[in-house]
């Protein structure tokens, strides 16, 4: 990280404090996320799915962008969270907030168990392991159709109104408010994590995993921790999807979902939390608009967009913008 060496040669704590200060741009960004309520009331369901995808992308960014764990199977945790939240509701407890936390805890627990395997491998092997785990979970859910409903999906999810008052409406007001609130809270947590000394250690692992033990840092413990946290957040995103739509199908665990979230991250820019949100928004809005125009071949345009972004702005859209901004201020 070039800015680390440039800004804080002596005082790491001070640098971290500066990083965690809120810039006006960030405040504007979050206020802008409230705009759909007033200007695009008919797009609220899309907005809520964007918020959920953004949360999922943040969870992947924490491990991929910050800790350098390449994954192609993170939908596993998204799906586990979704099925957990769905099943809790099917078996009679439809209270959303506790369901959300239980689902996240379950996904986090599985993430913790898996993390013992994850920290042992790197690079290509890591991609294969995550991919394999994702596919295994998918097949497991498929074969356990007595529990998951198999290819038909899990039915009978009834999410109670939030605080026994805000019912999930057709327009998506509740769904978007709820998803946005969850996104914001998880974002705050993630922001705190990446701007802590723990976050700094993660970047160290990403940059050079062999050097970390040399400077007295236990990288395996760090990786396990962040992987567990990331799994819990992914599970929370999945639970949000289950609760706001009242349906879960195998698609929640699919490879496509794991791949899409990586595409979102690459579009938005890895290693920055806002990149995850921007990438999710661009991906889903582009998908919505393009598939409305051409339902058959819209993925062509997504592919083109991805190639252009990667060629022109290798660090994603936000990375490209911040490079532009720093060149501007440097002049």
């Amino acid at each position, binding site marked *: 990280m070039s800015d680390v060496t440039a800004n804080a040669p002596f005082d790491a704590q001070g640098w971290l404090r500066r990083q965690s200060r809120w810039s006006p741009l960030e405040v504007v960004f979050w206020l802008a996320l409230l705009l759909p*309520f*007033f200007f695009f*009331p*008919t*797009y609220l*369901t*899309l907005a809520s*799915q964007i918020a959920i995808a953004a949360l999922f992308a943040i969870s992947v960014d924490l491990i991929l962008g910050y800790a350098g764990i390449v994954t192609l199977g993170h939908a596993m945790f998204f799906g586990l969270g979704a099925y957990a939240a769905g099943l809790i509701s099917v078996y009679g407890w439809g209270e959303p907030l506790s369901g959300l936390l239980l689902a996240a805890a379950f996904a986090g627990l599985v993430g913790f168990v898996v993390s013992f395997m994850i920290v042992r491998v790197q690079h290509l092997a890591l991609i294969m392991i995550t991919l394999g785990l994702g596919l295994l979970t998918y097949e497991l859910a*498929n*074969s356990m*159709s007595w529990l998951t409903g*198999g*290819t*038909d*999906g899990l*039915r009978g999810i009834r999410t109670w109104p939030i605080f026994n008052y*805000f019912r999930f*409406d*057709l*327009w*998506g*007001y509740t769904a978007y*408010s709820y998803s946005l609130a969850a996104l914001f809270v998880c974002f705050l947590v993630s922001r705190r994590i990446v701007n802590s000394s723990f976050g700094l250690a993660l970047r160290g692992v990403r940059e050079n995993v062999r050097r970390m033990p040399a400077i007295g840092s236990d990288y395996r413990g760090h990786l396990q921790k962040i992987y567990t946290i990331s799994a819990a957040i992914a599970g929370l995103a999945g639970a949000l*999807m289950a609760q706001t*739509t*009242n*349906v*879960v*199908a*195998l*698609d*929640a665990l*699919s490879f*496509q979902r794991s791949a899409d979230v990586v595409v979102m991250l690459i579009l938005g820019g890895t290693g920055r939390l806002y990149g995850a949100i921007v990438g999710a928004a661009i991906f889903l809005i582009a998908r919505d608009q393009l*598939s*409305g125009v051409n*339902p*058959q*071949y*819209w*993925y062509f345009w997504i592919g083109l967009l991805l190639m252009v972004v990667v060629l022109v702005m290798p660090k994603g859209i936000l990375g490209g913008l911040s490079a532009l901004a720093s060149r501007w201020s440097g002049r």
Partner: protein
Amino acid sequence: MLKNAAAATALGLGLAWSGAAIAQETVKIGVILPYSGPFADAANQLQAGIDLYMAKHGDEVAGKKIEIIKRDTGGPAPDVAQRLAQELVVRDGVDILAGFALTPEALGAAPVSQEAQKLMVVMNAATSIVTEQSPYIVRTSVTIPQLNYSFGKWAFDEAGIKQAYTLVSDYGPGHDAEKSFSQGFTEAGGEILGSDRTPVANPDFSAFVQRVRDANPEAVYIFVPGGAQPAAIGKALADRGLAPPETKIFAQGELTHPEALESMGETARGIITTFHYTLERDDPLNKEYVEGYTAANNGRKPDLFSIGGYDGMHLIYEALKATDGDASGDALVEAAKGMAWESPRGPMSIDPETRDVVQTVYIREVQEVDGELQNVIIHEIPEVKDPLHGAN
């Protein structure tokens, strides 16, 4: 407070839109299908059925112009289908939801149709429970138990088979098929010697077929998804010497639909299938339909998806005629209940209680006709209802 005000504004906007829609005298139909991804072919065939009906009958019914809005789910994604349905209702102001090639899509959209009180025409998704998910759902395709329960009964009663073995793909539709065939067969008095499930993706059938051979049943019932698998299982059966007439081979119609027949070749001869639509059925309505369809689609022949879309549009057109253009969900679903008509597939109707399709089930045998293998109807079971409705 803010939320309520915003909701009221939005509702006002929505009402204003639906008002505008009436003023323009259009009825909007939102079609939700997996136009992209692995099920795109099914979606395109279904869409071609819709297009053919509209090309034939014009885009005006009861003084209203019909407008189709297509939305892509990309596959069996209920959350996407639900969002698309919501958006179609609140943003595009559609009056009718239609399409739904896959069960998860229909399950995702069902709550929207219920809450928004819009007619939802399921043109393919074939799991029994679909129509129970909303009182506004009507189905114009088929259900797997409808085909296979009566098939199982027929196998014992008419074909005189006493023992059978089932071999199905290990996923939802396969499980349904296995269950309903076995149920029909054993209730009639037959005995299932054994049941095996094959992996959905790239299975090697030889080991499974060998197990069937070892059990030596009078008949084997097979359910595999379309694509490359019919040819693969046809070859595996032939290699192991499992062939009619020594061992009867039973299956659902997809196994021997025209394109699969081409790839299976001689191994398909004598296979007996159950289906609701038979391409070669000798009927003037069907001939006209097949000719029109083939001409409009570069020689591609209609299949089960096409007929679901075609009859789905027929239902919408006739319901609109009956309500004199009133596109409200309640009026349309009332008009649809009990509706009966002659389709290219044969006589069909909508069960007034379950809103599900009631139709003739055709038992066909692959035979050589004019030097070509095709499905020849050997038995018809009229007015078959889905046997599972009300049972669960």
